[in-house]
């Protein structure tokens, strides 16, 4: 029953491009094909000059062409050396239109064994996260000055030596309780759990360091064990995880209260540094001295103020002030007296001046004369006072002579002989 083009009255003819696009879209809406892991063996491994990698994945009965873009390569933790490796590849299936081939576009690659571990890891992580085991709210802060540190690690490992070296250098005041355990192999997880639990029976352990030196993902696998993760999360003592690894965290890291990239870093995280403490102690000493110095200085200032006040109020000051007052008063008195004397002196010299003007001798010197009766001494100042024949004394500037009155002239016309004022 071949369909005949001519038997169909309205045949639909598709272009190659159209049908290829149609097929491509069919594949791309299929959720299974868009997010899947494939397990197979690599072959025809080839990296093009562009950097993209082309290869084929196959099992005994089938094969599929694969492309891995150059941009995916840096994210891979593992790259097959070439053909014949059993891998687990993650990606999606689509069509390369120019050649009409469907291909697996790979974005992640794991070696088969690890791939399974990886899936297991992610599932466990999701489950424990869901359960709240890794909640930030569960995280505790270890005390700043631990007295006892529990150390869960192998007694034969480098991690132990590293941790002890750091503690000796930073904070030798601490006491270390080693709780020995294997950290690798099948027996490791239950031993780690027991070693953790044992530390809570000792008493007074402030913080636990769970340590292991660096190693491959398989080496560290014990720290991804669910039992270990639970024991870390439920430990009554805070746990710091110091498992050496470069990229991914282990389950124990997620469960721990604090996590550090190495055992040494974990030891540093839980202890103060001796040098830093010594520096702070010096600072405290300086602060104490400064505070006491200031306290004393403040009192000295107060004291000086009080002493000034006291001096102001002392009897000595009282006396000095009175003495000064006396000085002031006496100075005032002297000034007053001097003033009065000056006034008197001034008045005196005024009087003297007037006295000089009134001195009759001065008048006589100018040619006036005082005429008086020789007997009785009465001063003659009017014509009527004399009669002819009267004896008169005439006083002039340098002496007295006598004379006699000859006759009398008319009064008020001749004052020549009168003792009048000039």
């Amino acid at each position: 029953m071949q369909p005949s083009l001519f038997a169909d009255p309205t045949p639909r003819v598709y272009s190659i491009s159209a049908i290829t696009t149609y097929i491509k879209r069919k594949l791309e809406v299929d959720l299974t094909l868009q997010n899947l892991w494939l397990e197979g063996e690599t072959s025809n491994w080839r990296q093009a000059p562009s950097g993209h990698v082309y290869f084929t994945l196959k099992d005994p009965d089938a094969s599929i062409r694969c492309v891995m873009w150059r941009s995916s390569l840096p994210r891979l933790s593992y790259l097959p050396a070439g053909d014949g490796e059993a891998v687990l590849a993650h990606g999606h299936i689509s069509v390369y239109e120019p050649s009409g081939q469907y291909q697996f576009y790979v974005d992640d690659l794991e070696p088969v064994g690890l791939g399974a571990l990886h899936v297991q890891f992610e599932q466990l992580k999701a489950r424990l996260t869901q359960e709240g085991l890794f909640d930030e709210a569960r995280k505790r802060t270890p005390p700043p000055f631990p007295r006892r540190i529990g150390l869960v690690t192998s007694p034969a490992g480098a991690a132990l030596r590293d941790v002890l070296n750091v503690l000796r250098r930073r904070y030798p005041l601490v006491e270390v309780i080693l709780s020995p355990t294997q950290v690798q192999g099948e027996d490791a997880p239950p031993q780690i759990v027991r070693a953790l639990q044992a530390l809570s029976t000792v008493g007074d352990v402030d913080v636990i360091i769970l340590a292991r030196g660096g190693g491959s993902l398989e080496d560290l696998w014990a720290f991804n064990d669910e039992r270990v993760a639970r024991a870390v999360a439920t430990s009554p003592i805070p746990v710091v995880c110091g498992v050496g690894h470069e990229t991914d965290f282990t389950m124990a890291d997620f469960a721990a209260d604090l996590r550090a990239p190495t055992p040494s870093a974990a030891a540093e995280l839980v202890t103060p540094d001796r040098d830093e403490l010594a520096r702070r102690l010096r600072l405290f000493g300086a602060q104490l001295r400064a505070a006491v110095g200031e306290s004393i200085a403040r009192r000295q200032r107060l004291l000086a103020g009080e002493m000034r006040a006291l001096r102001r109020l002392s009897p000595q000051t009282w006396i000095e002030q009175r003495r000064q007052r006396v000085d002031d008063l006496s100075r005032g008195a002297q000034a007053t007296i001097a003033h009065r004397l000056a006034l008197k002196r001034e008045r005196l010299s005024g009087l003297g001046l007037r006295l000089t003007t009134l001195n009759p001798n001065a008048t006589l010197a100018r040619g006036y004369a005082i005429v008086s009766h020789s007997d009785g001494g009465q001063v003659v100042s009017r014509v009527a006072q004399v009669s002819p024949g009267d004896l008169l004394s005439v006083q002039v500037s340098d002496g007295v002579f006598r004379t006699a009155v000859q006759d009398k002239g008319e009064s008020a016309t001749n004052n020549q002989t009168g003792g009048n004022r000039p």
Partner: protein
Amino acid sequence: MNEIDNLSFEEAFTELEELVQQLEAGDLTLDQAMALFERGMALATQCNVQLDASELRVQQLMSTSEEHPSGEDYELGPFEEYLPD
């Protein structure tokens, strides 16, 4: 003040830290200030002595019930540092 010798480093350090704050706050009598100062210096000395004199002590937990995996009996024993080759 001999009881200072019995303080742990943390106790001495924490007390010293508080004491410095108290002294710096300043509302103390001179006698109080001097007493705090003397105690503070003694605490600082004690802390320094502890820092300088301490040697890391390491002990090892040993199970006394090896045959019982769930046994919870442990004792502390001397630790012999394993010397790697």
